[in-house]
């Protein structure tokens, strides 16, 4: 029985009244003043819906079908729009996942900050503006006095996320809902944002519901954790207990994700693809600068870096979607044309690509069969029976049942299934080399793990060479043989996995490693300290 919020047997439904799709079922939540509750689960677990429901808010088409949401004496499940409007922003505030999308592009930050206080009459314009500056300062935003007068697009993602937290604090609410607030951020930025959020909630004794899929993160923020799955509660416990001795298997499986390791292959291997002083420009901006390295045959090379480090540009250049402005790309020792249109059919076939966003990488208007049939026909020239057989074979390779899936349309597939189809499409060409561009970053951890295992298996069976573009060091640790660390279009450090992770030479590499969330409660404080030092070290160097 929480003294601020008590949710009992909450049921959310969508779709028709007759056979509704259940979104939440029998959910109980308790929250005391000043307490932080972590909601953990994979996408579709219903954690966001639960978070919004805690505000008495449901999205269009969703309805509260049962249960009570008791916030400080009012039952939000039955409250009138007017009542809710009075509470929203005033006593319950919301911090959304993508600050970039959740700030109104048409108004200045500070005006959006002031809107709440003015509407709820907690402050006049002048007071609101002063308060905004104060909160910006507490959120450790750069030059807090003027940043408010910028438009959202003029402010970086990490800063926006902090500005939004400040906005949520504007009326000093009793409860804030954090909905995956750092998912979209780079690890190094994430640390700062997480820190600022924790400080400010502590400072004002604000209670919070922190929604995320990242256990390491939640373990830093929450006093208690509730794990959810399929709209139901799996288990709830204090953070420490939850980390050390989870009771449910599902919870353990979540924990286990971080445990796969591909035995690193070391020792000499002749290069399949060599980059020789490659540089690339977007107009005047130099995206790549003097990139030299070789991709070893049959190995997996991971290219790591934060957004803007040029790793995706590198992928484009190798794929031939972007011609290098200097340097050469050698394929099997022979130079490779910059423009894919100038490459031979064989080269196009041998170099394949898997994309980050499976739903934009596959034509939503095609069925799985159409998606695979075309490249098979195109590259192998198989027809009739043989072609159909090959398509089924591909489906088996990616562990999807042909009979169930071949005739589904792409939108009818789950994220993981889409990504598998993406892999199958690449395999259809019988390639030797596959570029994997952030292929797991849009997926839940369990699913991601499945994909990684699949890729490892395929590599063994088909002797493929991978280049992994990613910002997620956990993934790198899982599958890379070689690691290339990139920053601002240059290679910071490159070497075997072991060397990079155990004995990083460069300060940036160290900071990057330190930023990866760890599952012990003290990590965040350590990481912030280290990060501070590392940054000063970098500036020194």
């Amino acid at each position, binding site marked *: 029985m929480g003294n601020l919020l008590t949710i009992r047997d909450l049921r959310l439904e969508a779709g028709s009244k007759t056979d509704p799709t259940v979104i939440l079922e029998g959910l109980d939540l308790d929250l005391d003043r000043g307490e932080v509750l972590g909601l953990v689960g994979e996408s579709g677990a219903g954690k966001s819906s639960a978070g919004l429901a805690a505000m008495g808010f449901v999205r269009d088409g969703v309805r509260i079908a049962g249960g009570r949401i008791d916030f400080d004496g009012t039952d939000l499940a039955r409250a009138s729009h007017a009542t809710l409007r009075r509470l929203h922003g005033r006593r319950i505030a919301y911090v959304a996942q993508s600050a970039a999308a959740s700030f109104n592009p048409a108004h200045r930050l500070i005006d959006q900050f002031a809107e709440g206080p003015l509407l709820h009459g907690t402050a006049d314009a002048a007071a609101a503006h002063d308060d905004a500056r104060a909160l910006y300062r507490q959120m450790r935003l750069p030059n807090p006095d003027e940043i408010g007068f910028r438009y959202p697009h003029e402010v970086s993602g990490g800063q926006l996320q902090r500005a939004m937290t400040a906005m949520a604090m504007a009326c000093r609410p009793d409860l804030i809902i954090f909905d995956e607030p750092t998912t979209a951020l780079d690890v190094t930025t994430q640390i700062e944002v997480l820190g600022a959020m924790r400080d400010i909630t502590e400072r004002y004794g604000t209670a919070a519901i922190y929604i995320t899929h990242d256990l390491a993160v939640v373990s830093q923020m929450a006093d208690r954790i509730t794990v959810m799955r399929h709209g139901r509660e799996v288990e709830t416990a204090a953070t420490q207990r939850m980390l050390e001795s989870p009771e449910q298997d599902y919870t353990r499986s979540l924990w286990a994700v971080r445990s796969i390791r591909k035995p690193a292959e070391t020792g000499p291997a002749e290069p399949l693809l060599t980059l020789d002083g490659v540089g690339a420009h977007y107009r005047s901006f130099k995206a790549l600068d003097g990139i030299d390295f070789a991709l070893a045959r049959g190995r997996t090379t991971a290219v790591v870096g934060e957004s803007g480090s040029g790793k995706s540009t590198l992928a484009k250049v190798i794929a031939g979607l972007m011609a290098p402005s200097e340097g050469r790309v050698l394929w099997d020792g022979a130079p490779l044309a910059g423009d894919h249109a100038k490459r031979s059919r064989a080269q196009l076939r041998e170099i394949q690509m898997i994309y980050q966003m499976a739903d934009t990488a*596959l034509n939503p208007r095609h069925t799985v069969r159409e998606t695979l049939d075309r490249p098979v026909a195109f590259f192998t020239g198989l027809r009739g029976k043989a072609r159909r057989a090959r398509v089924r074979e591909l489906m088996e390779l990616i562990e999807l049942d042909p009979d169930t899936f071949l005739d589904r349309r792409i939108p009818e597939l789950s994220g993981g299934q889409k990504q598998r189809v993406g892999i199958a499409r690449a395999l259809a060409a019988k390639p030797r080399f596959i570029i994997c561009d952030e292929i797991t970053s849009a997926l839940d951890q369990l699913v991601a793990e499945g994909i990684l295992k699949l890729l490892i298996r395929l590599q063994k069976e088909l002797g493929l060479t991978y280049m992994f573009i990613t910002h997620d060091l956990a993934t790198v640790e899982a599958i890379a043989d070689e690691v290339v660390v990139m920053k601002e279009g240059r290679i910071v450090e490159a070497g075997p996995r072991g060397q990079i992770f155990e004995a990083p030479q460069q300060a940036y590499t160290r900071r990057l490693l330190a930023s990866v969330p760890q599952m012990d409660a003290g990590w965040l404080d350590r990481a912030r300290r280290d990060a501070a030092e590392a940054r000063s070290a970098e500036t020194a160097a």
Partner: protein
Amino acid sequence: MTLLRTAPPTAIFGLLVLAATLLIGLFAPLVAPYGETEIVGAEYLPWSAEHPLGTDNLGRDMLSRMIFGARNTVGLALLTTGIAFSVGAALGMFAALKGGWVDQLMSRAVDVLMAVPPLILALMLLAIIGPSIPNMVGVIAVIYLAPVFRLSRAAAMNVVALDFIGAARLRGEGTVWLLRREILPNISSTLVAEAGLRFCFVFLFIAALSFLGIGIQPPTADWGSMVKENATLITFGDVTPLIPAGAIALLTVSINFIVDWMLHRASGLKS
């Protein structure tokens, strides 16, 4: 069928009207009590058993004219929009796909086309090539080509940016495949929506041309021209011209009901 069950009443209404119109038009000779141009009695006979809608200015049976009108009107509109959209969309997608100077050239050409007032353009072109029905279809198609080009180009632009186009390109797919199989299916809903309105504008446009004396030539019956032929009556409080006008309105509204519904479904699929 499952589709229909999910359809809102407005859309169902629209579909019914459209289907009815198409059927009537298709089987006009069987349905119509009299011939299209057949003179069956005195001018402007009142509504009666043998002439449910009376007769028109030349003593032709109004009902029969309406029925044949459905055929000509809808037929023409279909043909015209068909041409305008197939050509316009193809060009628009092509421009979006190629980009660069090809795109520039085509877009500027379209700008020029759009900068000339449609009615004037039609007047001049028809005066040049003569106001036969095929010519009129051609001219209106050309005029509508421009907006369709713009629309499909804009829509295709968003699609071209997506990875699956990149993937198809990396595969070395030809232009035709990219246009037909990769892009077109993704912008079709947008095009359909536009087509709905254009389709109706065609017979309004034809009506306007008839008004300026270069539309469909008598004795061919088409709703737009029938409004024109009998328009003068309305100033004497005679409702005859309201019949074709009402038919046009009904069809327009119906088609837009369908279009709105389709759009709604399309947007639903995306989210």
